[in-house]
């Protein structure tokens, strides 16, 4: 089962290595990982998605709590959090294909942020389903390169998706 973990840590060198080591030392593969300082630069928020059985994950979370630099750990359950991912895609798009790509981008509210003779670079923000759907549509044009931020997530207080 896939879990989304939100970890608030001190913004210091070595913290990411400690957190990552806690997963790798137990044979967990981190699917996505997103790290950046919060509004208070003393702290960073790490959002990681991992797959694993619940008991193993429970152990991982407790071990994360034990790290001195970790302040909070939450395992974000289904529907209890808002999540977004940003992806950048370089897609082959010359001549007539370009307008088709633009149309698809419009539907998904994606932006074209760079264009050249043979390709375009697209920016898309969305939750996992939206990103997956977009990739499915755009794949036939030929994806040349892709970079994704991994999921960033925050716990919500009500269960309504906006």
């Amino acid at each position: 089962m896939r879990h989304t973990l939100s970890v608030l840590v001190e913004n210091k060198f070595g913290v990411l290595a400690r957190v990552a080591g806690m997963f790798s030392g137990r044979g967990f593969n981190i699917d996505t990982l997103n790290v950046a300082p919060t509004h208070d630069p003393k702290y960073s928020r790490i959002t990681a998605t991992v797959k694993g059985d619940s008991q193993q994950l429970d152990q991982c979370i407790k071990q994360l709590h034990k790290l001195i630099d970790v302040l909070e750990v939450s395992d974000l359950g289904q529907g209890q959090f808002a999540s977004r991912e940003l992806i950048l895609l370089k897609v082959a798009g010359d001549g007539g294909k370009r307008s088709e790509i633009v149309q698809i981008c419009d539907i998904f509210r994606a932006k074209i942020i760079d264009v050249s003779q043979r390709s375009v670079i697209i920016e898309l923000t969305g939750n996992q389903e939206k990103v997956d759907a977009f990739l499915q549509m755009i794949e036939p044009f030929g994806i040349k390169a892709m970079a994704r931020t991994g999921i960033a997530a925050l716990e919500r207080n009500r269960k309504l998706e906006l």
Partner: protein
Amino acid sequence: MSTETLQPATQSTPVPAPSAVTSIKGADLFVACLEREGVDVIFAYPGGASMEIHQSLTRSSRIRTILPRHEQGCGFMAHGYARATGKAGVCMATSGPGATNLVTCIADAIMDSTPMIAITGQVKQEFIGKSAFQETDVFGITLPIVKHSYLILKIEDIPRIVKEAFYIAQSGRPGPVVLDLPKDVQQATISGEALERAMAAEMDIPGYSPLPKATDEELLAILDECARATRPVIYSGGGIITGDAQDELKEFAELTGFPVTTTLMGLGGFEEDHPQSLRWFGMHGCVAGNWAVCESSLLLTFGARFDDRITGAIAKFAPEATVAHIDIDKSEHHKNKVVQYPVHSDVKYALGRLNELIKERGFQKPDISDWTGKTNGWMEQYPFEFEDSPHIQPQFAIQTLYEETKGEAIITTGVGQHQMWAAQFYKFHQPRSFLSSLGLGTMGFGLPAALGAKVAKPDRIVVDIDGDGSFMMNVQELATAIMEKIPVKILLLNNQHLGMVVQWEDILYEGVRAQTILGHPDNLGGPEKIDSLYPNWPQIAEGFGVACKRVWKKEDLRAAIREMVDHDGPYLLDVVVPFTEHVMPFIPAGLSAKEILIKSNPGAK
């Protein structure tokens, strides 16, 4: 690992109090901060990246610096010191190989929850990441085996970091903290207001809260279980000792009347000749303790972690028991054994509060006389025992040591058969008396740990019960015993083999010897072949200037042990024992307590 010629230590002016001077070097500031934490001894091997701190230490009037003969020696001396006192043991090595030689000791400290400060010199920051001479990424290497670690990059951070390091190492569930200190920080200077600010800096560890306390609801739920228990057992671990909760445990045991069995880490946490004691349990533990836990209906686990050497096959461990687990480390709950009552608490508080609640609430002791009749019967029927022999049995040597020291010694050990026999045939009546590498199982632990313990507790007799394999691994520390005048005793059970592996070979591999013979394979020494013994321990001891006697006749043993105990100085007693003994009882790995082997049934020899 010294890289530069070291000057003989000269006693010059003491380290000045930092606030009283205009300018102070990083190394002096560091030593002043160690003094502020109450450090009275440091075990340290110098080298290029740490000699600056050694220079400062020569000027400290409060800190004794002890020079081991190998960095692993200094790490395990710090262990011995820490385990004997409960205070953090402090060790130091230079960068590169000095630091990597400390790694085993750091891993040992995390496994046995030993408070330890491991200081490593580091190359100057301008050389970090350049594959400089004697550079290693100590911070990176030690990440998975520390409670916490610091690479100190600025001189003004030294006072705060040292304060945090000691607090973290010693509070909550104790453990090792690594301080990696680059040489340029040691040589930098700080003065005036910046220095005052640095010294006044408060700890800043918002993610750390070391003292959880049980709620009354949690404890009352456990008391309800106790009141209706039919087959209760208390399983107490090392947490009782680190948590200083032996008095609370004893009171709780006596208030409830429940039998108590401990882990090896917990030895001395409950008096072993108390009428409710079932000694200790686990792979080579007491039959009564193992069976009692296995058949229990209520298992009260205090400060222990369901290690595989305790549980055997986890699915068959205490299969009918309702389990309560009080531990200061939440990650131990459900880690190996899923329990019904996990309680996240300092064990001293939880047991103390349980005792209060028992008295306040008019707790009725359940009638468990059938059960205690059964467990006491097992105790009588299956004591730790060994068969008599014309030679000195290793168990007999330890039993004699127990008698000659009246059970008052601090015992350290290496790892293997002798370690298990030490726990079986030396009874422990007070905490911090059995110091052994139990989680990591590091051979070579015994001698340096004994040295550290003796430095910490000069009034106690300290005996390293060792095997010839383990003893060899840190034998160089005999020099430390002489040069630093630390009068430890070594009871060496010399069987010319790696006995524990030999035992497994006998039971599981039809006695095929695979690199387990330490003596001459074609001319094996032993009690009947004294001239063939290898190596010649009395000669080695002589070379180090350590008093030594070899004993192989039963009738000479007691007098020899007496002489060792009474000798004024370090002493090695080379006791020649047969290699054919097995540690019994034995629960082979992966089996349950029901399948315990009680009597020796060796295969090919």
